[in-house]
């Protein structure tokens, strides 16, 4: 089977990427500030919903039921979209999806498209693929714009430029806007409102004249064929409304059975992702709306492989809210680039190795990019037990021989209490000789932390000597 492409090069293992990231003090500062802000906001609006636990339970069950009947709901969605005047295309992998979209754009005779932020098109590397066909894709979401102008890579699911602070964004705008269209104003400051205004002016004309738009979707309703896109800025509405042709690339796991299910997800998603009671704009359309030409591209790209895994398939419940990223202490210190995938953070650590396989050193290292602290599971609005999936993936990863030897030795000791007791006694006798810095991989502990003092006597020997302290 071909390797699933996830829009990012997978070269170095996570710990090496992370080691570099934690030394970048500007990055650490930006991430701490941003994740701290969003955590507090999410906690506030979640606490405000008296039935949050019930919504979460329903969200999980609806997604689980959908996945278990996915074939039926996909066919139903196709019928509903077609009946409403849309056209449905199926793409097994990234290359096929890109080809379908490129052909659809070429058929319109256009060479420019505007894009609404979408993880699916990031995942398949659509912009790069379109460029090979002479088609330029303009990102319109503010954070995506920052990434595109800065020739950068996304580092967060919801806010791809979270690693950039306002001063850095000002520089990117001042330097690169002119290469893509209307230049930034000469007197641009790093005031966030001024930066947003610069983006508004830069993209305004493009919105008004571009004939083709490409989007993803947050939800696709099988019952009615309705597509749903949540956003904040209005760039989504611009793309979904003004162009003559709209192409939506949507992962097959985005389908929901019924219209009514939105009553759950329109509460779970905004509160979990941006920490708002409701995001500024949500667009819903069914088929060819208001005379538009509408194409839906349903994307597999490794998802059916994940679906086949009993433990791992729960990752397909993900609604891409980013709450797990925002709360993750590892993500907060490394940022998204260390994960080498468009899906960073805890959800990325379980999704990427499942979609891409664990052939590369990076992908094998991702399930270990967690202290298993459980904060991700606690905030997940569809209750994906990320720590359990991580542990399951770890049990399938290939391990290095020194580690295997160490684990085998530890297992051998623990298999008999006599062996453990003998080791403890040896340790007690040699306690004076424990070095302050350990050799080999164990040195990674003593680089920054002292070792505990080895006691003269283990607990079990004390118990035997004193009859449990009674003598």
């Amino acid at each position, binding site marked *: 089977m071909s390797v699933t492409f996830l829009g990012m090069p997978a070269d170095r293992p996570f*710990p090496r990427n*992370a080691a570099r990231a934690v030394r970048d003090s500007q990055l650490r500062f930006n991430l701490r500030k941003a994740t701290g802000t969003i955590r507090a906001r999410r906690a506030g609006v979640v606490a405000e919903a008296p039935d949050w636990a019930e919504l979460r339970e329903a969200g999980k069950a609806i997604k689980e039921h959908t996945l278990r009947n996915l074939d039926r709901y996909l066919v139903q969605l196709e019928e509903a979209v077609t009946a409403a005047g849309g056209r449905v295309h199926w793409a097994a992998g990234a290359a096929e999806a890109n080809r379908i979209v490129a052909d659809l754009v070429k058929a319109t005779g256009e060479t420019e498209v505007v894009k609404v932020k979408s993880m699916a098109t990031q995942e398949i590397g659509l912009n790069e693929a379109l460029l090979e066909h002479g088609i330029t894709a303009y990102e319109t979401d503010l954070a995506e714009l920052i990434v595109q102008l800065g020739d950068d890579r996304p580092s967060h699911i919801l806010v791809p430029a979270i690693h950039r602070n306002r001063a850095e964004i000002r520089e990117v705008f001042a330097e690169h806007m002119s290469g893509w269209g209307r230049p930034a104003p000469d007197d641009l400051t790093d005031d966030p409102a001024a930066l947003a205004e610069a983006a508004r002016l830069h993209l305004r004309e493009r919105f008004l004249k571009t004939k083709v738009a490409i989007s993803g979707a947050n939800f696709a309703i099988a019952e009615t064929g309705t597509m749903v896109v949540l956003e904040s800025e209005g760039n989504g509405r611009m793309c979904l409304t003004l162009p003559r042709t709209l192409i939506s690339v949507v992962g097959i796991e985005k389908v929901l059975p019924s219209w009514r299910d939105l009553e759950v997800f329109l509460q779970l998603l905004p509160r979990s992702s941006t920490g708002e009671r409701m995001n500024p704009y949500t667009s819903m359309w069914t088929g060819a709306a208001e005379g538009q030409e509408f194409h839906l591209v349903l994307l597999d790209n490794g998802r059916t492989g994940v679906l086949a895994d009993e433990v791992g398939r729960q990752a397909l419940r993900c609604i891409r809210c980013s709450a797990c990223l925002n709360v993750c202490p590892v993500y907060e210190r490394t940022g998204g680039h260390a994960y080498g995938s468009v899906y960073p953070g805890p959800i990325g650590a379980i999704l990427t190795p499942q979609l891409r396989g664990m052939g590369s050193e990076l992908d094998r290292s991702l399930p270990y*990019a*967690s*202290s*298993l602290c459980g904060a991700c599971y606690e905030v997940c609005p569809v209750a994906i037990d990320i720590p359990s999936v991580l542990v399951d*993936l770890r049990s399938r990863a290939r391990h290095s021989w020194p580690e295997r030897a160490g684990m085998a030795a530890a297992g051998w000791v623990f298999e008999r*209490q006599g062996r453990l007791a003998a080791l*403890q006694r040896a340790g007690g006798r040699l306690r004076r000789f424990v070095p302050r810095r350990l050799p080999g991989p164990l040195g990674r502990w003593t680089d920054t932390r002292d070792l505990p003092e080895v006691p003269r006597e283990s607990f*079990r020997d004390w118990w035997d000597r004193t009859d449990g302290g009674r003598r």
Partner: protein
Amino acid sequence: MRVALFVTCVNDTLFPDTGRAVVRLLRRLGVEADFPHAQTCCGQMHANTGYRDEAVRLAKRGVAALRGYDAVVVPSGSCAAMIREQYPRLAGPRGPFADAVARVVPRTYELTEFLVDVLGVTDVGAYFPHRVTYHPTCHSLRGLHLGDRPLTLLRAVKGLELVPLPGAEECCGFGGTFALKNADVSAAMCADKARAVLGTGAEVLCAADNSCLMHIGGMLGRQKSGVRVMHLAEILCATETAGVR
């Protein structure tokens, strides 16, 4: 009531004071705990590092050692969570191992659960005249949902001044082999935790898990901060006459 102490391999080998404190504390409260000698390690390190087969072997050993007791007391949030959460998954739905797990799991208590829920005690008669801050540890907090139990117990300790730890709910970065496999991130998390601890002005950092304390204490020690780390059991065991240890 037959009570077993599952002391954990870390406490048994490196922190026997904690085990002794649990035994003495329970004795003071009228409970004679037994120490089943066949116990070694719950298997958490193997399970969480991806060595499932070894973890299953150790889990089988663990439940066999703890068989026949009415209650199993574990002075470690993460080892208690290992037994309660991971053993059922390792055992699967059916078979003798699953049956043994099903008997042990509902009888397994983290120390503060045993004190508060089973014995119904919140004031254990301890005396500890020091400024203390408490780190809740991830598996105690989000795995076992210990909630306010440890704090309730600490508040009842005579002479003890409890100061809140900012960002208490955030992981210290230990995570077992995570501390070695992702040493840089682990150390960065630990440095932030150590800074928060120092900011409280506490003399003692307390938790219900010695593995996290070994990690934070290791950094506090390297920094020569003067802050001591102590397992909750050792504080609860301290009295006016007996002193700390």
